[in-house]
């Protein structure tokens, strides 16, 4: 009985906070997508108009699809870049591994906005890379190189996320019992077979965690596309933002935001059927 009291005291503030400022807002957002408009009488009228409009608008759906594909691509690419480093650190770096890991992790803590900005400075038409190359006589003055393209978005996001992804993959590799590798060698596996059949499968939880680490925020991304993406590089997040800050069509914005939520949570839900997600968090 006494124990129940303790649990109640410890949990009540957080539970109330999360209900009031997280669950209810999400629910209200869902309901709001059925509203006619954001102001006056339109606020209380129920309508499916925005749903009809959304699903009839091929441009919206294509942009959503493209954003998911781009996020998927960026996530896979980031994992591919981060894995070798995590593998090297965990298996070959010896005593220095934590120092070296810190070297890779530190940039992750540097302001996200600044790191995106640095790529805008580098990739700009008259920016660092272009002017550096033309200074060396390797490229013509005024070439735009990568800036304002989907490729610029991919490179910038890859840069932003590599350190974040190296960490869970490293943690996953560290959890592998090294005796299993010995056993594989004893049973006649060579290094490649051991990696393919033992190390890689056992590292998958860490890899998956790293993948989700990138995929989830990237689906909602709009800052990087706005700064380096140009008209071809905009993502779904940009039009969600515009519904609130420019077009002032809040119900449509709520619906788009809901669509984004579904796109992230459905794969996560399917995944949770097969893996315990808490395992991915390293708990």
């Amino acid at each position, binding site marked *: 009985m006494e124990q129940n009291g303790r649990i109640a005291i410890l949990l009540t503030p957080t539970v109330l906070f999360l209900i009031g400022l997280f669950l209810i807002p999400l629910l209200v957002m869902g309901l709001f997508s059925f509203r006619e408009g954001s102001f006056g009488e339109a606020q209380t009228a129920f309508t499916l108009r925005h749903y009809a409009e959304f699903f009839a608008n091929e441009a919206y759906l294509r942009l959503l699809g493209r954003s998911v594909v781009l996020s998927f691509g960026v996530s896979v690419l980031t994992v591919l870049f981060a894995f070798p480093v995590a593998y090297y650190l965990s298996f070959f770096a010896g005593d220095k591994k934590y120092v070296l890991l810190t070297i890779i992790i*530190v940039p992750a803590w540097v*302001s996200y906005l600044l790191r995106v900005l640095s790529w805008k400075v*580098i990739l700009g038409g008259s920016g*660092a890379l272009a002017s550096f190359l033309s*200074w060396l006589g390797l490229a013509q003055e005024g070439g735009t190189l990568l800036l304002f393209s989907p490729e610029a978005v991919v490179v910038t996001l890859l840069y932003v996320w590599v350190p974040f992804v190296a960490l869970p993959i490293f943690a996953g590799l560290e959890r592998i019992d090294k005796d299993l590798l010995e056993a594989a060698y004893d049973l006649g596996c060579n290094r490649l077979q051991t990696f393919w059949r033992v190390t890689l499968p056992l590292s998958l939880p860490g890899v998956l965690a790293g993948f989700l680490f990138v995929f989830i925020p990237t689906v909602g991304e709009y800052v990087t596309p706005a*700064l380096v993406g140009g008209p071809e590089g905009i993502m779904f997040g940009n039009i*969600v933002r515009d519904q609130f800050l420019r077009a002032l069509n809040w119900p449509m914005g709520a619906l788009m935001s809901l669509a984004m939520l579904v796109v992230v949570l459905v794969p996560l839900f399917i995944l949770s059927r097969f893996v315990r997600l808490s395992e991915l968090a390293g708990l």
Partner: protein
Amino acid sequence: MKRSISLGSTYFWLLAIFLYLPIFLLVLFSFNDAESLRFPLSGFTVRWYQALLEAGELLQAAGNSIIVGVWSSLLATILGTMAAIAVVRYEFPGKQLLLVVAALPLVIPSVVIGVALLILFRQLVDVELSLLTVGLGHVVINIPIVMLIVAARLAGFPTNLEEAAMDLGCTYWGALRRVTLPICLPALFAAFLTAFTTSVDEYAMSVFLVGTDATLPIYMYSQLRFPRKLPIIVALGSIILVLSIGVILFSEWLRRRDAVGEVSEPDV
């Protein structure tokens, strides 16, 4: 064996260069005596840093960010720690549900949370947008981060220390205050710092919740439209870079010290 080691370390250092070069360029350009950020460099100057001191709005925004960062991270640390203690130490009905809900802010794009809170504040309860609404949003995304960090630490030491304190006459809350919290202190500190850094850097959600007083990322982003201000922003960025690297190394040092202490504890 030997070959793969050198291959691995070559890749490691190439990646490190890839990660640090853009940051280094930003600092380099902050001392460059030209408005456009391009090569060749035109000479050394500190005038962008001098201009910073006169940029009142910018200092205001930096101050706002620090204020919001401190109180929202404190609140998140308190809430997250209390919940983490309950979750690690006790079994109760609905625990799985609580864990799922508490983790959700981590797996939802922050834009969605920003949109949801904006609709709540402006359409349901009619609260003026301000630094308060921004900070509340930051608490939502920081609670799961704090819970993860503190729970990991709590799971690492046995409950019998608390029981011993209670056998010696402490009340439960006394044991919590005099045994559990001191043991968790490094984790609480790490959690606070992580939450603070997240708050000070948050843009994607804050932009929906901010009123007339801007936070630093909001102000910086709004200034990016003016190319002539870019060097000043870059100078400010360089200062933030150096400061944040200092903070990280400090908290890493704390964590390391903590980890060493753990090894010397007797096995239970």
